[in-house]
Structure formats: structure tokens, C-alpha cells
């Protein structure tokens, strides 16, 4: 392998890894932006999304990239229920309650998943698993190109929704100033449900892309991606969607670059070192604003 080929290969793996992180972190940031809650159980929605896709795929044999829509709809419903029955009753009662509630949800979702799908790790194979496409010196599996394109489409859709739709603008207004939004007649509780549901749907998309890429999944798979998603939104700036996107990309590329240059053991460490450096230099994160 030539040096240029290796460099491009590592960059591509970083871009792919970044896609999963971006979807998860964007959803988390959307929820935090509107509701200002800390949900450590967000990774469990990725896990449920992965299982929903895998189950439908096993039952119907449908293309998993089509199932992503179904998985997102299912998670919209689950997200709405969790928001309504778990987070809304404790909203504003203190961060500690939110943290312990979300920790409890982690165990609840993990055990429920283990009960329904067993806790054995599983994997599925994409229908395009054997297809690779030459891009310059690289021979890239088609699935990864689809994953990057799907991520871009979802993010573009989210951008349009938030910028152009009435509900999207109301969500942004709630994110910017909750009391102000209430004063101008926005139903902020409705915005909470929307943001939580959309956040969960994005996690479901991340879970689907996770399984389509051939990675194994089990009920405990969500914890590590959730921690990374939190680091990404802090890096990018709390509440900032562009920050989550840029942060996710930085994370993906930095992790893979570190794994190549320093060894696999440094993969997680380097990302958190970057986080520390950014916080020291710019405590609000890359795209965060003071007071957010």
C-alpha cells in the first residue's frame, strides 16, 4: 500500500465512523437544545433502532436501507412515550433527577432488549456486501458510500425541517429561549415531544447504519457510542447542530488517525484529549455560545 492510499483509506474510515457519531450526536444535541435535559440513555435508542432494523430484515428480507424509515418511525413513537411518561414529569426538578432517570432507562432498555432479542450478539449482511467501487486508489465497499449519502440526506432533511417548517422554527425558538417561546404562544411541551422523537429517530438511523455496515450488535452496544456522542456535542458546542456535525467528523477522523499513528489503544484517548484542549481554549465548544 502506498502512503497516499493509506492516508485516503484512514480518512475514509474516519468519515464513515463520523457519520454514525454525527447522527447520534445531532439527535442528542437537538434534545438538549430544546429540553435542556441530559439523557445518558440516548445510546439505547441506537441499540433499539439496530434491533428493529435487524428484526424486520430477518422477517421480511427487505432492503435494510428501506427499513431505516420504519425503524425511525418506531423510534419516534418510543421517543414520544419516553418523553411523555419519563422526562416530562421530572422536567425542571433538577439535573440529578434527569441523570438518574436516564441511567435507569439504560438498564430498562438493555434488559428489555435482552428479554425480547436475547443478549447474544448478532449481525446481518447487507445485500450489497460483496460490491466495491473503485474511487481513485481506493476500492471502497458500496455500503459505506450509501451510508455517507444516507447520512447527508438525513442531515439535509433535518436542516430543511428546522429552517423552513413552522414546527422547525418553533423548535429553534424554544431552543433559543424557552420562556420567550412560551410568551409568543409556542406550545413548548409539544416542541419537547417533537425534539425528543426526532432525536430518537436520528439514533435509530445511526443504529440501522451500524448494523448495515456489518458491525455486531447486542443489548449493551449503546453505552460507548452514547459517551462519544456526549463528548462530540461538548466539543461542537451544546445545542449547536453544526457543532455536532463538525464535532462528529473531527472525532471520526481523529480516532482513526490516532489508531493508525499511535495504535488502537489511543483511539478513544485522542478524541478526549482533543475535547480537553478545545474546552480549555474555548469552553463553550467550537460552535457553542456563552449562556447556552
Amino acid at each position, binding site marked *: 500500500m502506498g502512503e497516499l492510499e493509506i492516508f485516503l483509506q*484512514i480518512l475514509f*474510515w474516519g468519515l464513515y465512523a463520523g457519520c454514525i457519531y454525527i447522527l447520534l450526536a445531532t439527535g442528542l444535541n437537538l434534545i438538549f437544545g430544546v429540553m435542556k435535559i441530559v439523557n445518558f440513555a440516548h445510546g439505547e435508542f441506537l441499540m433499539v433502532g439496530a434491533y428493529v432494523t435487524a428484526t424486520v430484515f430477518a422477517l421480511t428480507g427487505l432492503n435494510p436501507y428501506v427499513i431505516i424509515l420504519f425503524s425511525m418511525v418506531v423510534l419516534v413513537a418510543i421517543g414520544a412515550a419516553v418523553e411523555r411518561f419519563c422526562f416530562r414529569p421530572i422536567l425542571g426538578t433538577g439535573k440529578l433527577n434527569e441523570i438518574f432517570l436516564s441511567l435507569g432507562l439504560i438498564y430498562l432498555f438493555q434488559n428489555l432488549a*435482552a428479554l425480547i432479542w436475547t443478549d*447474544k450478539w448478532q449481525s446481518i449482511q447487507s445485500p450489497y456486501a*460483496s460490491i466495491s467501487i473503485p474511487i481513485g486508489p481506493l476500492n471502497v465497499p458500496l455500503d459505506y458510500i450509501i451510508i455517507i449519502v444516507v447520512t447527508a440526506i438525513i442531515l439535509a432533511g433535518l436542516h430543511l425541517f428546522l429552517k423552513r417548517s413552522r414546527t422547525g422554527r418553533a423548535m429553534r425558538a424554544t431552543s433559543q429561549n424557552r420562556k420567550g417561546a412560551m410568551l409568543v404562544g409556542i406550545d413548548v411541551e409539544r416542541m419537547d415531544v417533537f425534539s425528543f422523537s426526532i432525536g430518537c429517530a436520528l439514533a435509530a438511523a445511526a443504529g440501522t447504519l451500524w448494523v448495515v455496515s456489518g*458491525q455486531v450488535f*447486542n443489548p449493551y452496544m449503546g453505552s460507548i457510542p452514547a459517551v462519544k456522542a456526549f463528548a462530540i456535542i461538548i466539543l461542537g458546542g451544546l445545542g449547536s447542530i453544526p457543532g455536532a456535525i463538525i464535532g462528529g467528523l473531527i472525532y471520526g477522523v481523529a480516532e482513526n488517525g490516532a489508531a493508525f499513528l499511535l495504535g*488502537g489503544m489511543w*483511539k478513544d484517548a485522542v478524541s478526549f484529549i482533543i475535547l480537553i484542549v478545545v474546552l480549555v481554549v474555548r469552553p463553550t465548544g467550537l460552535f457553542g455560545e456563552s449562556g447556552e
Partner: protein
Amino acid sequence: MRYAVLFIACVIGAILFAGCTQQTPSQTTQPEEIKIGVIVSMTGPASNVGKNMWQSAVVAADEINADGGVFIKEYNKKIPIRLIQGDDESTQQGGQKAVTKLITDDKVDILVGGYSSAVTSTYEQIVADHKVPFIVTGASSPIITHRTDIDTSYIFHHCPTTDSYGQYTTWFIDQVIRPAINAKFGFPDDRNLRVAIIYQDSPFGKGGLSAMNNTITNDKLKMEIVGQQSYKMGESDFRTVLTSIKATNPDVVYAVVFPNEMAQMLPQARRDVQMDTIFLVPENNDAPEYYKGIGNYGEYSIIESRFSPYTAPKGPIADAAMAFKNKFKDKWGAFPDMMGASTYEGIYIAAKVSENAGTLNKDAIRQALGTLSMPQMVEAMSDGTISFSKDFRESRFDLYMEQLIWDPTVNECRPVIVWPDALKDTSFVLPDWYKPGSA
């Protein structure tokens, strides 16, 4: 007054009588069961292995109890076994909690199990402090009985260590793969074979790495390690690590990994990074989930093994292994894995040493473990017997190498034994797509 004196005398008499009867050992100290604590990962990431170990233990206990239990000479009768489950939750803290409960609350006579060297080595201190005989059937790092910071004299190791994994794998590479590559590509016999190693950053992974290094050095083999990469346990994206390894141009790759990791690494290596090389993995990967997970990307890869769900070496243990697999499948609807097999044997070892000791005294059981010599059961043992070495209390297994071949009838790979000659079904095949490494 006379009645009062009589009443008090009766009470005193009754107390004295009760006291006397309590002195009779045959009525109060005779145990109703032999309590075996089975420490396994019933929850958490290692739970698929842990459940298999527990289920195997139950199969063994059922068989022993169906025969009335274990004869204990001190009580002159057979006593049934009761298994008490300790869930280490796949974590070090969980392991400490579970072992403490088994020893102090449940007051088990013997401990069996222990998976993940990192977890097991954490609670060994508790076992050592309470001097409870412990038959380790899952953790594979040699540190389990080699460490000197605690008293490990009550701990006996009944599963091959990573030293054995690495040693047998290195011998196989040297004796079979190296000549096959040289013959096919016209390389000189003295060409050094290029080996790359990917290992989990844990006692298990590091053990495999050092075992291969030591075997190459000590046996002066014509092999060189051209690249090595570690990763954190639980990693799922190996693409960059594999790209790094590919850049070293290896002839073969030895991956000291867990099955859930290898089921991702192998497809990523063959499909994403296009590594046309032979992968070798240690025995813990020889599990049904692994075959399902790797799909056709696993074809022609190698597993070092001692108990496979889908094959068994010809010879005396073949029937016993098949009987165990069938019983397990009848009871649990699945196949046992090798950690299950050694735990199944671990329960039998616990029963045998209790019988040999003739008592449930822990020190006597420990001594019986030290002098144990019982026929091999479902796994091939050196000399055909299960016994523990005098130095580090390790049993010695006869290991073999399997090559995976795609079976279109089940849509999964299936193993065939290709080494050693005494056990092999067929010869190792270097696939057409294989590309050797280069300096």
C-alpha cells in the same frame, strides 16, 4: 413449691438434653448437599459465554445427581450437588460482589467457573483470603495461577492458558502454513514467514502475543513478527487497525480476540480492507455464534481448538463429546461451547475431588485437587487424564487446529481438523485468493 422445683428441673433437663444432642455431629453437621458456587457472566457483554458455562454446569450436576450425588466417606452416604450461581455481570466489581456473596453468604464448598482473566484476577484475592478451592474453567491468562502477589494455592486452572494457545498456533504456522506458502510461491526454505498480530489489550490478548514471541525465540523458528496492533476490549471498528496491519505485508495474521470482536474483524479485513491472507484465532472463537457471525468471510481461516460445537477429534473422547453436546442441546436447545465443556468437566472435577477427599473440608479438597488423576471426559487431555501440574496447578490439554470450510447446506462455515497429524481429518488448504506478504 414442689411443682416449681420439678418444673425448673425439667427445663434444665431439657436444655441439657438439647445441648447434648447438639453435640452429636451426625445430626447437626451432616450436610444435605455439596454447595458448588458457579461464578459466571450471566449479564453484561460476556453473558453469552457465561450462560453457556452455567448451562453446562447444570447438565453435569443433573447427571451426577441422577446417580444419587457424590459419596462422601465422612458421612458414609451420597450427597447431591447444589449449584449456586454467582453473576459477575462481566465486570470486575460484579465479580468481587458475586464471589464475596458465594463465599460468605452461601458458604459454598467449592468454586467453579471464572471467565475473562481481567475479571477473574480481580476477585482471586477474596478466594485466596477465604481459602476456598476454586477450579477456573474460563479465564485463560497464565497469571491466574502464576501470580505471586497473592496465595493462589487454592486455585486450579482447568482450561488451556494463552501460553498454550500461542505455542500450538505458532507450531502449526511453522510446520504447516510456512511450508505450504514456500511450496506454492517457490520461496526458499529459509525464508522467514511474516506474521502480524492483532490483540486485545488485556491479559488474554497480551498473553497470546508474548506466547507467540516466546515460541518463535525459544524454538528458533523461521518466522518474524512484522506488525502488532492492540485495541480496547469491546471495540467494533477495526478498519484502521487492519489497514495498519495490511501495510506491514504479512503472510498470516494471528488475532488474539474474542468471538464478538472477530466476527466483525474478519469481514472488515476481507471485505473492507481487502486482506487476502490467512487469519488464525484462538479457541475461544470456536462457538456457534462465531460461525454465524463471520459468514463466508471466515472461509479458510484457522481456529486453534479443544472442543468444537461442530466437530470432534477421532478417538476415545468423540462419543463422550457427542453425548454431552446432545444432552446440552436436548436441555437448552443449543450447542455448548468450549468454556461450557471445561465448566461441565469442572463440576465433575469438583465432585471427584470431594469424593477423593472423603470430606467437605476445604483444605482436604485442595489436597485432593493437587493429587487428582481422572480419565479425560469431553476434551482431549495430555496422557488422557485430567490432573493438575505440581508447579502452577494447570491441567494440560491436547490442542488441535481447525480450518473453516464453507458449507452451502447450512450457509455457514464448518470446521475440519487439519493438525496435528494424529487427529486431523484432512490437510490444510492454501486458498487460490491467498496473497503472500513481502518485505
